[in-house]
């Protein structure tokens, strides 16, 4: 048993999202949903974060940014793709500058559907991500 699942710190990156999912991620932090109940803090710092929440699809410009953030995060870490843009490209899938879902760049652990993803489904997804985090910790602990 580790304490990862009790204190998951989150970093949020907005890929080429429409803001809809972003403000829902932010809304999760605010009084009505208050994810700090689960110990979740929205840190802006990849070095402190355990969960990378990405909204929006990837394009040429932000691929290096996403990779950079992912590499800066310390093991164990979990990636959550929020909203259908981050899972498949969504309505913008056919746009010339959209490469598709986040899973094209970094491994994604949890996919949250919805356009825009509701705060409730984001909370569900993050809770699901905590299970993945715990598993990863076990694997990581063995490596260490």
């Amino acid at each position, binding site marked *: 048993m580790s*304490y*990862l699942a009790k*204190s998951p710190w989150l970093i949020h990156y907005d890929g080429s999202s429409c803001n809809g999912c972003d403000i829902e991620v932010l809304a999760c932090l605010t*009084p009505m949903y208050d994810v700090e109940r689960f110990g979740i803090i929205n840190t*802006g*710092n990849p070095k*402190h974060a355990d969960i990378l929440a990405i909204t929006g699809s990837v394009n040429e410009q932000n691929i290096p940014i996403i990779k950079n953030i992912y590499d800066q995060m310390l093991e*164990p870490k979990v990636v959550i793709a929020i909203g259908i843009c981050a899972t498949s490209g969504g309505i913008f899938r056919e746009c010339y500058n959209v490469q598709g879902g986040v899973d094209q760049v970094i491994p994604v652990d949890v996919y949250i559907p919805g356009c825009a993803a509701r705060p409730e489904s984001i909370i569900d997804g993050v809770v699901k991500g905590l299970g993945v985090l715990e598993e990863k910790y076990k694997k990581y602990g063995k490596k260490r």
Partner: protein
Amino acid sequence: MTTTAITAIIVILYLIGAPILGGILAGLDRIITARMQGRYGPPVWQPFYDVLKLMSKEKAAVNKTQNFYVFCFLLFMIFTGAVFFAGGDLLLVLFALTLASIFLVLGAFSSNSPYSFIGAERELIQTMAYEPMVLITAAGMYLATKSFFVADIAAFSTPLIYYLPGIFIGFVYILTIKFRKSPFDLSTSHHAHQELVKGLTTEFSGPTLAMIEIAHWYENIFLLGIVYLFFAFNPLLGVIVALLTYFLEILIDNSNARVTWQLTMKSAWIVAATLGMANLIIVFFKLSV
């Protein structure tokens, strides 16, 4: 039992108790803050979960010296508190405190990140802002009790607050800086919602960050210890006032915007110069006449 043995017991109690108390205080802080913001808030043990989690994360330091500096920060912070609770020399305590924060600044400077660099610069400015008031506090306590030893100050029969009301208010003012609370959370902030990301602590991660957290717990307990000194004539009252002060800081934190470093500097020095110095002068003449 000899006085040395009692001192030793107090120091050991401090070494073990301070992080626990400090952690619980931090947890209560987060719950009260959440309630003030209309949220539900985390469990009271949340700070401990955070630190334990940070311990189990991957170790990654920007460079080797960084960890050394942070370790020294923790060490001197513990030393500061230990000397203080052992009843040692107040001046030594304050110098050790400054040394500790300088180590933290050095740790931040040792990385190349511009965020942590500017954060460190701001921390230095903050140190400059609060240091005069801290020294005036020590001087005031000396003038009132004719001793720099914490043990003598604590044992002083007349309530210190009676002599030093201005200094007490001034000290509470700079306590906001020391607790890193809004309006003076310039160098680093609790939730990293500022232009410098996490400022001073941006480049620390994993176990190193956990050390900083623990050092902050020690620091907070020590600072509340100084607040206690003003009301040491009645231990119960002292503890209550210390807790009330902490609550006041949370209230101030939640009803103020972050101000600029210019105002921090200016206001801290004005407070030190007016409240602190005036109080000092009055005490000097009152006691010497």
